[in-house]
């Protein structure tokens, strides 16, 4: 028995060793540095083909807006049809780089973080289309977040994505609780906001309904940070400008307010395990005076709460200050390997400028449609919540500042920096100084590696 078993064991070992040698002898994994994706500039067409073309889209499950738009597009241009594949957000963002690198890359992908993929040469540079279609008529701030420069910093450089709906965040409030505590008007300063929270707490109501199982306290945190610091500094940090830091007095002040709210019981006791869906569900059922969230929820809350809900932009520190909101386009990119770049660029231009398309975006997502500043914003009923969120977006567009989400700064900052630090902060385990420093440390370790 021993003699028979030995050769196979030896054989196995030999196999393993051979495999190891064969594989480690191979070159380093990954693409060669020489691969480039730059295409000849100016070599683009703004005429839609009259041939039959099928465009492949890779979208996010639960957000059917692009699908709705594609149906309308086919109605207007019957020779263009769409093939759509959808995945949950997490799966989508994790698969996207490999899907784009493959030979049958789709023509359009929903992709929230674009800097890494742009640096890896996976994304089509949209600058030629920007020139050809005259996207310089769009407000510059609308496209800023979707530019990536040669060093991989966002905020300037070439255009690599476009938005389908441009979202803005703020605070939803329950009008019934507001009436109960004598809050007749939305607060105009942070002090007033905190007074309302205190009044709600005293009246036995939940002041804030906020999810933080994956770091949703970043909404109120950044809402405060935007007011206390120069928004340009926040943007620099998000865009990975050299030397940018979030370890500032303003961020400590924002974190201090957040910790104070937690200490006073303004958040639910299960805030650190409360997920997004449950947060919206409980708020819609009437639990919680305030909820820090974005305009994408407005159509939904309109249906579930009717006239019992309102929306306001995060109040400023001093009355009459310049409003600052965080918001971001729902970004869509064209892979460098896309088979039909001209057609998909036509589609992207169409959904920013066609009247019907813009109406679909507003009705379905509650977000502003973007596009040239000269085009009118589609009409919505004046009593609706979406009307309020669109008005807020217009205020920001005309006289305010929009910053991207701090969670978009690096691919891991939300899960490995913001989430654990803010969870610990709300639990009273770490000081505001440590929380802010912890986020900065994670940021540096990610950028450094």
């Amino acid at each position, binding site marked *: 028995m021993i003699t028979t078993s030995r050769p196979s064991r030896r054989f196995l070992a030999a*196999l393993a060793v051979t495999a190891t040698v064969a594989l480690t002898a*191979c070159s*380093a994994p990954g693409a060669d540095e020489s691969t480039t994706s730059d295409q000849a500039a100016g070599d683009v067409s703004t005429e839609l083909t009259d041939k039959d073309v099928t465009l492949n889209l890779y979208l996010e499950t639960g957000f059917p807006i692009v699908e709705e738009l594609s149906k309308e597009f086919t109605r207007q241009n019957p020779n263009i049809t769409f093939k759509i594949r959808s995945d949950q957000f997490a799966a989508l963002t*994790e698969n996207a780089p*490999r899907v784009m690198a493959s030979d049958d890359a789709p023509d359009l992908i929903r992709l929230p973080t674009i800097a890494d993929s742009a640096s*890896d040469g996976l994304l089509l540079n949209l600058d030629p289309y920007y020139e050809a279609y005259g996207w310089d008529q769009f407000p510059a701030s609308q496209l800023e977040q979707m530019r990536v420069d040669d060093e991989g910093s966002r905020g300037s450089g070439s255009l690599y994505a476009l938005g389908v709906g441009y979202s803005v965040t703020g605070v939803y409030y329950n009008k019934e609780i507001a009436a109960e505590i004598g809050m007749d008007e939305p607060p105009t300063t942070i002090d007033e906001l905190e007074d309302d929270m205190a009044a709600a707490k005293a009246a036995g109501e939940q002041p804030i309904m906020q999810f933080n199982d994956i770091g949703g306290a970043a909404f109120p945190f950044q809402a405060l940070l935007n007011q206390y610091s120069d928004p340009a500094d926040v943007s620099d940090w998000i865009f990975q400008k050299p030397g940018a830091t979030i370890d500032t007095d303003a961020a400590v002040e924002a974190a201090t307010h957040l910790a104070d709210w937690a200490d006073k019981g303004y958040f639910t006791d299960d805030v650190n*395990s409360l997920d997004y869906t449950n947060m919206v569900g409980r708020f819609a059922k009437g639990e919680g005076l305030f909820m820090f969230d974005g305009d994408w929820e407005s159509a939904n809350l309109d249906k579930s709460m009717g006239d019992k809900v309102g929306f306001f932009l995060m109040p400023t520190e001093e009355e009459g200050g310049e409003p600052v909101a965080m918001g971001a386009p729902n970004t869509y990119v064209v892979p460098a390997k896309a088979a039909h770049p001209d057609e998909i660029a036509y589609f992207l231009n169409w959904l920013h400028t066609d009247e019907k398309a813009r109406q679909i975006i507003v009705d379905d997502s509650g977000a502003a449609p973007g596009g040239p500043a000269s085009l009118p914003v589609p009409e919505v009923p004046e009593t609706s919540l979406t009307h309020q969120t669109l008005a807020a977006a217009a205020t920001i567009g005309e006289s305010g500042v929009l910053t991207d989400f701090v969670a978009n700064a690096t*691919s891991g900052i939300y899960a490995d920096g913001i989430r*654990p630090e803010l969870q610990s902060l709300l639990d009273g385990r770490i000081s505001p100084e440590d929380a802010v420093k912890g986020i900065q440390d994670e940021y540096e370790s990610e950028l450094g590696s």
Partner: protein
Amino acid sequence: MTLTHQEAGRTPERPASAPRARRGRRSRRRWAHLVYVAPALLMYGFFVLKPLVTSVQYSLYDWNGIGPATWVGLDNYRRVLTDPDQLSIVGHAFELIIFFTAVPVFLGLVAAALMHGLPQGSFSTVARTVLFIPQVIPLVAAGIVWDWVYSSDGIANQLLSAVGLGGVTRPWLADFSAALPAVGLIGSWVMLGLCTLLLLTGINKIDPSLYEAARIDGANRFREFVHITLPGLRREIGVCVTVTMIAALASFDIIYISTQGGPGRSTMVPGVEIYRLAFTQREIGQASAMAVILMVLVLVTIVPIQRLTQRSDA
């Protein structure tokens, strides 16, 4: 063992032949074995050995999975082994062993010993089924259900309030000190059925005359358990401990679904961290290094247990 047995069985069919010819046949048969195992071996090589080797290779590079990779030698390992955050993650995995291994093996022994004495019938069938069901439920579904059980107004808190323990109720998975034990208990619940069933079959293999002899000698049920059942189950206990320890050290699904490693980093385990490094942060090199370290850890803990419990002189 099986082989010698077969040889012996076949000898009569083959009348005495020259020793030389026999050896020739033997060696031919030896290679014939390889033909039979070749398909499995190829699959094993392709799906187990190759990924293993590539992981080791990746762990020596700084690579985001798409772009060019840079050789960094052992830097990835150094980072994992010197970062206190990463080390605490490994610590959590070992804490989980209490819940994945100690609790289910102990309770499994008790349950098996109690059920052993029961007459075959509907009660013992129901008991076995109830204990084994968690093994059949996908861990993702289990994670979601336990998420509800542990929520502020979930069953766990309702039960505690009902028996007058309203003071200890809390949102279990949101609580820094309670989250890891809470998640661990999900593991205990899953593993208990497997352990009980394994141990129960083990008990049924123990020679009944030993129990009879013990009873004649005046041993009570506890003494029977300590002196007959436990030693007789040594191998089965070894299997239980091995399987559950690997489940504890390599745990992923339960944690990923219920807490994602939170609150803070209080329930982060190597499995989730590897996934996060590879797919969220796109640090393929560091993720691979962590995976290799995890594999070594599993081997280091499992091999002594195997040696201890599977000795052939038992």
